[in-house]
């Protein structure tokens, strides 16, 4: 599988993402935010956590207009896979590739801790390594992770089985305890918790390995 990780000047989970993808067996390249094109033959583009453009205006808003994000949109529109974690999730909602928006945490504080997540569906390349109902532990580290969407969008997400992960104990006020959502074609996943920080026993847990392993299995066979 060929994967690439977008790097913005304030990205700070880009290398963690590359390490997690490589450990699962992917061929990984880093792409700079000013690049206007993604590598040829790319299967997966990952938009990592961190900060982008100071997160001025709204988190991810300026990044969503950067040259590389236009290429990410084109990649997804061609049927390519995309994974956005934390700031990457915010960027993907700002591009319109995923529904809803991420607002300031309900408690107004930055939250940095491990959280329990329930796998809400195993029906995606990202979650097929889990069983629906599994409870996993991933770290969160965000100030704006409060997922919101209108009632119609929420009903659509629920009706189409597009909620990927929910919080076992809601840390940030997210609507419906939503921690991660899938696109309509199930090839784009955005989530606030960090699976790439849960792939090495030395860092506290390995629950994220199944996400990257499952993805590799699906995309390598594709």
């Amino acid at each position: 599988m060929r994967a690439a990780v977008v790097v913005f000047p304030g990205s700070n989970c880009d290398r963690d993402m590359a390490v997690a993808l490589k450990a699962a067996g992917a061929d990984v390249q880093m792409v700079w935010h000013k690049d206007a094109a993604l590598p040829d033959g790319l299967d997966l583009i990952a938009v990592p956590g961190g900060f982008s453009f100071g997160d001025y205006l709204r988190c991810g808003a300026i990044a969503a207009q950067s040259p590389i994000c236009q290429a990410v949109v084109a990649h997804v529109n061609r049927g390519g896979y995309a994974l956005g974690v934390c700031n990457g999730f915010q960027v993907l909602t700002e591009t319109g590739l995923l529904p809803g928006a991420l607002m300031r945490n309900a408690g107004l504080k930055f939250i940095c801790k491990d959280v329990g997540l329930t796998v809400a569906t195993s029906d995606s390349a990202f979650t097929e390594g889990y069983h629906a109902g599994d409870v996993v532990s991933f770290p969160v580290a965000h100030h704006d992770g409060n997922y919101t969407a209108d009632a119609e969008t929420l009903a659509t997400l629920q009706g189409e089985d597009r909620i990927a992960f929910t919080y076992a104990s809601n840390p940030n006020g997210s609507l419906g305890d939503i921690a991660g959502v899938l696109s309509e074609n199930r090839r784009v996943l955005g989530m606030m918790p960090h699976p790439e920080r849960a792939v090495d026993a030395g860092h506290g847990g390995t629950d994220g390995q199944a996400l990257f392993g499952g993805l590799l299995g699906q995309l390598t066979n594709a």
Partner: protein
Amino acid sequence: MKARVHVMLKNGVLDPQGAAIQHALGSLGFSGVEAVRQGKVIELDLADGTTEATIAQMCDKLLANVVIESYKIEVL
């Protein structure tokens, strides 16, 4: 020409920052503050003749996230 864009969270979208401000005003002894909503104001210096429709495009594409925010354009 100048324009001022007011961006506010839509009605019905919970505003945790507004709620915190309301709480703080209460703590300062200001009674009767029934609700607070926080938004932002963006001032634009524009070439003369820029249409309100163009400013609306700026709002839709970047200045507001219309999933959660509404905007009002004031041409000065």
